[in-house]
């Protein structure tokens, strides 16, 4: 199977006054046409991994990798200008909160058209037609009206669907979704995920789904990486999550309150300093 993405020995490092801080410490993984989940707590390096793939780490931060290939073509050696053709067109990124990722003074429709026209040579009217079609694809009722709305006029769930539309319109090969639903309500969450899932499947894309929510990832992904302190401590197929071997994964699972299995006390995760020093697992 040819991989969409091959990552070997990826490091993200930030020089600070008290020495170099390693946010991601030598992780390896591959991505095919599948849904790969990356889970971890805040500070585990999961978002940094997503950003590093797009080379979005700002200086003085550094991205170092032995290999980072998109369909066999190297990403690390590209210039900033060449990277701009990759971002959006080949790999797109959906961020956590639509309130901050949409331009507040631009109509949402124009933002979607702009994303399309950046990567495809089409007329304005063609881009508009395509944008409205895309809004329809993310289950927005009355897309013509929404096309002319400003971001503050749409709800959070709608905003995130607009982001998905914008990110999918250039037809990328890989989509990275960084906590796409954590700013949304539970009831809207599932709807947004279903739409994302459907579109990713239809287009045969690879999805990297970054989340702190272990259960959400396990219901939604094919494969899960569990990150701790910048390393991958365990990799599992999503349906086998409850057979996790690593004490960290087990601890995370057990610390969740469950509606169907009430407990008097929740188990508190006991951290073992050795976890941070274990070698990273390849995935």
């Amino acid at each position: 199977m040819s991989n969409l993405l091959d990552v070997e020995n990826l490091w993200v490092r930030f020089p600070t006054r008290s020495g170099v801080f390693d946010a991601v410490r030598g992780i390896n993984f591959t991505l095919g046409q599948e849904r790969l989940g990356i889970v971890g707590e805040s500070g585990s390096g999961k978002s940094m991994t997503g950003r590093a793939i797009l080379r979005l780490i700002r200086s003085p931060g550094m991205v170092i990798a032995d290999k980072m290939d998109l369909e066999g073509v190297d990403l690390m050696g590209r210039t900033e200008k060449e990277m701009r053709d990759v971002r959006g067109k080949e790999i797109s990124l959906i961020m956590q909160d639509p309130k901050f990722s949409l331009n507040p003074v631009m109509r949402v429709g124009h933002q979607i058209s702009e994303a399309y026209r950046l990567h495809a040579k089409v007329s304005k009217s063609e881009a508009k037609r395509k944008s409205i079609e895309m809004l329809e694809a993310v289950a927005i009722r009355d897309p013509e009206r929404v096309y002319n709305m400003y971001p503050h006029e749409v709800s959070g769930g709608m905003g995130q669907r607009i982001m998905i539309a914008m990110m999918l319109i250039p037809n990328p090969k890989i989509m990275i979704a960084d906590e796409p639903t954590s700013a949304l309500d539970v009831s809207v969450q599932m709807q947004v995920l279903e739409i994302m899932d459907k579109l990713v499947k239809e287009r045969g894309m690879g999805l990297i789904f970054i989340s702190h929510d272990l259960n959400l990832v396990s219901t939604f992904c094919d494969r899960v990486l569990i990150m701790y302190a910048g390393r991958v401590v365990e990799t599992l197929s999503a349906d086998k999550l409850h057979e996790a071997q690593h004490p960290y994964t087990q601890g995370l699972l057990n610390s969740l309150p469950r509606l169907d299995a009430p407990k008097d006390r929740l188990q508190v995760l006991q951290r073992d300093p050795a976890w941070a020093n274990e070698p990273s697992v390849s995935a």
Partner: protein
Amino acid sequence: MNEISIENLNVWFGEHDERVDAVKGANLSVPKGGSFGLVGESGSGKSTILRAIMGLAPTWSGQMNVGGETLGDKRTRSFYRKVQMVFQDPYASLHPRHSVDQVLSETLSLHGFDDIETRIDKLLDDVGLGPSFRFRYPHQLSGGQRQRVAIARALAPEPEVLLLDEPTSALDVSVQAEILNLLTDLRAAHSLTYLMVSHDLAVVGHICSDVAVMQLGEVVEKLTVEDMRSMRTRHPYTKHLLESSLMAG
């Protein structure tokens, strides 16, 4: 006797054409020592009920009786001693330039306590922080530690009622477990009454014994946590909420 009883509460914002009814005719009651959860999606008015109780939403009508006091336009000092609130985001609710010591001693002196020194040590101990945290500033604390400080501040005047507005939603799951355990212990140790808002049904199910489901400003259904667990609901919206949370969980 109910510690919190709310009858026909309406809260609105704005006037005339711009009036938005955030809470419409809500009724609920929590017995002394009980713990009650409010669930619903954002904008359903659950946090607004807490804010109305605290006097943070000035335009309201209806009857509210909390901690044996009937609430009017102004809250008395004794009310603020009896009723305290813990906010959602500990990154926003602590003053960035006040140390833990300042935060706690200000609250204590406002409420007229004199043995401040010993009380601060006791409070930090109660929330599992210990005296070494006393002179730290919020940026020197993790999210979970900050929420513990916020809880210590709420406990400072020895309240009877704690209003909890999504106390763990800004925290990681492992830290959430610690805070939820702490809240359970504190309720038992200080015989507190909890009114908690959360969008996470599993969290509410863990802490509370009764739940009210809100939608568009109205309480659509009240049920016990046992009913919730076994999906014994009458209202389609509750069912929808339960299904989406069981699917994601």
